[in-house]
């Protein structure tokens, strides 16, 4: 449930579902997201331009020439949300090469976490992760939760260019940079797999909220010869 609603600038509403990250709170965010998306599609509400669900927040962007903060806030407060029972979540397996030329931040991680590379990889690859949200630049999946021993903060200064396919970790989360972009996550490897496909208009992202994701390690040779 929404704990607090505030404005994010003059063109967005910030719905706060709390500060914890767990699947229950995230499911509530996703329920609101689906519910409001449907109302937009059915033209029951005007002026909303984007919905951005995340772990425990929902940001609603709107066109200030059509509506305003107060109207959208009132609309959100008037909603009754039903639990979304549809369950079409999938299991996705993603290959990763962790050679040093792809795992850019092992030196930093080894120092900050005080464990060796083998142990980091063992802990990383032994879990199945839950997709809380997708975003950033086209289909980047935000996955959790990492083993407690490999949790580390973001880079102090984000990199200007993360290579496409970079697999990163920060705090209890893992993700994949679907395109070359700036970014602040600790990079442990790279995947040759296509995570975002703009030719697939209905579902361009390989991983979607609610999906279960596991990773498996591949050699540099497998990486370079990857074909799909």
């Amino acid at each position: 449930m929404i704990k607090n609603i505030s404005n994010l600038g003059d063109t967005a509403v910030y719905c706060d579902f709390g500060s914890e990250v767990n699947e229950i709170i995230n499911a509530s965010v996703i329920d609101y997201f689906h519910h409001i998306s449907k109302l937009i599609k059915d033209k029951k509400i005007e002026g909303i331009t984007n919905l951005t669900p995340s772990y425990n927040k929902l940001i609603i962007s709107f066109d200030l020439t059509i509506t305003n903060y107060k109207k959208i806030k009132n609309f959100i407060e008037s909603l009754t949300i039903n639990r979304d029972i549809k369950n079409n979540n999938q299991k996705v397996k993603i290959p990763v090469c962790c050679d040093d030329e792809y795992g850019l931040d092992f030196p930093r991680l080894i120092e900050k976490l005080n464990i060796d590379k083998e142990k980091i990889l063992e802990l990383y690859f032994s879990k199945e992760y839950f997709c809380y949200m997708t975003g950033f630049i086209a289909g980047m999946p935000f996955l959790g939760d990492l083993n407690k021993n490999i949790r580390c903060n973001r880079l102090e200064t984000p990199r200007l260019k993360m290579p496409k396919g970079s697999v990163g970790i920060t705090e209890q989360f893992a993700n994949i940079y679907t395109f070359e972009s700036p970014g602040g996550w600790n990079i442990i490897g790279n995947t040759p797999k296509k995570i975002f496909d703009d030719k697939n208009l209905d579902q361009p992202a390989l991983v979607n909220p609610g999906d279960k994701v596991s990773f498996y390690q591949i050699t540099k040779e497998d990486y370079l010869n990857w074909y799909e």
Partner: protein
Amino acid sequence: MNKAYFEILRAGVNTTIQDKGRNHLYHVGIAVSGAIDQRNYIFANRLVENQFNEAVVEFAYQGPLLRLKNGKINFAISGDIFFKIIRKNLGAEDGECYKSYILNEGDQIDIISTKNSTYGYLAVNGGFDLKKTWGSYSTNTKANIGPNDGKKYSLKDKIFIKNSDTKNLIERKINYSYSPDNIIRIIKGTNFDYFSKYAIDKLFNEDFLITNLVDRMGIRLKGPKLENIVNTNIKSEGLVRGVIQVPADGNPIIMLSDHGTVGGYPKIAVVIAADLDLVGQLTPGTKINFREVSLEEAQNIFKAYTDETNKYLNECN
């Protein structure tokens, strides 16, 4: 008859197709994109009698050199731009912004540079002949979405023009000139309280420099370090245009049209909607200052800004 098109003889620094932007895709990580300076985008279209959602060419710093093939068109350039029109067999003449011109087969438009701004816009009557992706012509070069395979234009590329109505070409003008401003108005962000009193004092009283790290995603600023006393990381959550994030190094970053849809750095403030066009046009080396306004003030300023835009549109003739 063969379709009219521009042949690119020089691509320029960052020449892309843009429009109003692409909505309803933040949840899969696709930014709005669209023209950085929406007012100038609309002006360019108005000058050639287009609908306001028609595609235009956006360029940054040095623009393209274009030659018209197969036809006669009406075009206009908006922004603060130095450009020439090179008439076939007649030579070059200086071009004026906010004025539409007739261009004949073989004539060239040489967009030499922007002046006290970063972006400019070129519109042609009837628009460009391109396919929309998810309802928009905008090019998102970060995710390779939109015209030209989602990439900026290169030498020898062609930009096709829909169907210029050669019978009805009129030269129009908007009596406007672009003026930059270095006071940026902001609303407190959702993590405003994460910053020390000292940092907030600096935010509103000291200069911030626009660094060279400027693109359609965002602007990195350099100024006094904005000290965070709570947490330099937040759980990744949505962003919108104008959000000012502060990473652990204390240097703010302003999000522009191609921004990542989510981010995990605290949001100290958000630039008001009425100042987004202005912010996007800031050039490296410029010093800016921030002023706080309330939500209500921001809404009034936006209304005044929109009314002013409409006044110019109505005066166009």
